[in-house]
């Protein structure tokens, strides 16, 4: 409810997307005389640009205030913990662009590694086979989310809220009563090995972001994702299988959440079924801060990355700034709102100038 921020250059219509079709005629002069904009002015009119500015501002402020924020050790830490959140934000951003929600990512973030852990440590399943099985499980969860939502015509908010409970419960069932030590995963190094400054997980994150970025922004399927989230009926009329697009996005979203959970479990060597509790709100906040519209059809991978970095940095920077524990969440809440506001305002400012 309420359209998303960060869509500069277009007037906000009360009725949202549909209205922007309706107001066709009002917009006839919308075509600026300078249609051939320079690359630069094109870049600064994008919502990601203002998110990026936000990022620079936040980094500069924390660094000036703490003196440590951009130190080797701290950036190393941030780069260690970023991928686990960031990978989930990638999936949720794409799903939100396709016009749907997923509240179950936090639970899937636990379910997948817990099942992997149970299969290997308890039942002695071959780690590779187990990995394949649990990634299949992640896809299945996403498929169920999508199929229930679309076939029964209920909001994904509800379907995935249900899945939030179900998947969390399942991850507890998976580990059972007695905590077992983590099995040895031959692929552990590939996912999380520490290279000194960075870990393998960062390479995975960057790699996934690049592949998904290309897929979303440059491939035909990506085009269909934007079309589906932007105006589902039109997309359907143009022959897009919007059901398939949405279900793919649901499945991808669960898959990435599960993968991120595996990475966290392998890195911390801690198979805790409580992993990722409350992650869903953090992730959606990250996506929105990065310029993704709650109403679908608008968003980007760069925005998803910036949003994830912001969420992680604000938290870390506030502790460095020695904010009192009691006031910590006040600062966090204010910063989230401020970053979205700046995002919107910066977007408007730059789009007015073009």
């Amino acid at each position: 409810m309420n359209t998303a921020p960060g869509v500069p250059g277009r007037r906000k219509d009360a009725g949202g997307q549909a209205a922007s079709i309706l107001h066709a005629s009002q917009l006839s002069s919308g075509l600026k005389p300078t249609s051939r904009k320079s690359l630069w002015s094109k870049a600064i009119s994008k919502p990601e640009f203002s998110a990026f500015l936000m990022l620079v501002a936040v980094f500069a402020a924390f660094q000036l205030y703490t003196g440590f924020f951009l130190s080797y050790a701290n950036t190393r830490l941030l780069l260690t913990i970023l991928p686990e959140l960031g990978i989930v934000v990638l999936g949720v951003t794409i799903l939100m662009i396709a016009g749907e929600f997923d509240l179950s990512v936090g639970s899937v973030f636990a379910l997948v590694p817990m099942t992997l852990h149970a299969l290997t440590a308890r039942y002695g399943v071959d780690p590779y086979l187990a990995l394949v099985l649990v990634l299949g499980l992640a896809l299945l969860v996403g498929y169920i989310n999508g199929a229930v939502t679309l076939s029964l015509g209920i909001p994904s908010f509800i379907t995935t809220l249900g899945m939030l409970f179900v998947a969390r419960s399942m991850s507890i069932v998976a580990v059972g009563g007695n905590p077992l030590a983590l099995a040895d995963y031959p692929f552990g190094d590939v996912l999380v090995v520490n290279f000194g400054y960075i870990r393998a997980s960062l390479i995975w994150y960057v790699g996934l972001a690049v592949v998904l970025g290309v897929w979303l922004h440059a491939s035909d399927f990506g085009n269909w994702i934007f079309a589906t989230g932007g105006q589902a009926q039109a997309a359907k009329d143009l022959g897009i299988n919007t059901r398939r697009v949405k279900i793919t996005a649901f499945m991808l979203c669960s898959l990435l959440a599960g993968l991120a959970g595996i990475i966290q479990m392998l890195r911390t060597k801690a198979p805790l079924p409580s992993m990722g509790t409350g992650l869903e709100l953090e992730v959606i906040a990250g996506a929105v801060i990065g310029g993704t519209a709650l109403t679908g059809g608008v968003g980007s991978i760069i925005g998803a990355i910036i949003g994830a970095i912001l969420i992680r940095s604000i938290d870390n920077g506030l502790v460095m700034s020695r904010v009192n524990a009691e006031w910590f969440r006040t600062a966090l809440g204010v910063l989230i709102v401020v970053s979205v506001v700046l995002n919107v305002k910066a977007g408007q400012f730059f789009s007015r100038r073009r």
Partner: protein
Amino acid sequence: SEYRFNYVMHSNTGQPFWGAVNRGMQDACKQLNVDCQMLFLDKDGDIAQEKTNLDASIAQHVDGIVTTIINDDVMDESVADAIKQGIPVIAANVDDSKHGAGNARLSFIGQDLEQAGYDLAAEMAKSFPDDDVQVVVNGVDLAQAWAAQRTHGIERFLQDYKKIHKGNVTWEVIEATYDTPTEQSRISAYAQSNPNLTAVIDVANAFPAALAMQDLGYAAGKVKVGGFDLVPPVMDAIKSGYQQVAVDQQPYLQGYLPIVQLFMMKKYNLGPWDVNTGKAMVTKDNIDAIEALSKEGIR
């Protein structure tokens, strides 16, 4: 089965600690052939829901109730009510701070949270240097009673310690949560902005703090780390030397013993009795012996 017992507690299902308690309860129930149900919460420490679950258990006329008394007032009425209706209620894990005087529960099986915090801090202080000491306490989420009580115990020790210690003693309480990456990030950030940090004392699993020290490239033991409860990553942290102490309160017993006790009370009319399930300090010295048991979910 002969009897139905409910175990009403205050945590959500995600905690491995409670997994062990549940396991103890299930084992006892199997051995005694009783029907047991453990009632978890949706949100950790949601006292209103715990009370609701307690009331629902009474409404169900179960034969006995085990509960955790995480607040001195909230549960009083319901517990008294149950006992009036002939349903025995015993406390486990957390007791009323005034013990039997503050609540009608028949007995208590578990650990004194505040005291355990005090004891953990005392154990860690054994390795503190003679000069200035700077401690950070991860209070996890001070809005939750168990966390606040342990924090309080830790702070009480530090106050006492300050009086006898030669060097300066300073400490600060932060809420770093127990979500692994968040805690790691916050502890790490704190350590960097306080390069003279002596110790991190955690009121929950301390392994994220140990991980933070490791990832910062600190030598093992440069910053002392201590916390509660034994789970595999905590044992790894102790073995690696990044965590010095973990307080084990033997959760399996906190699940097993109350059921046995209720059974005895119902079947043979035996009286209730208190059990201190311990405040065993697990360190590098005794970790190996304990790990074997932990793998079976008994410790």
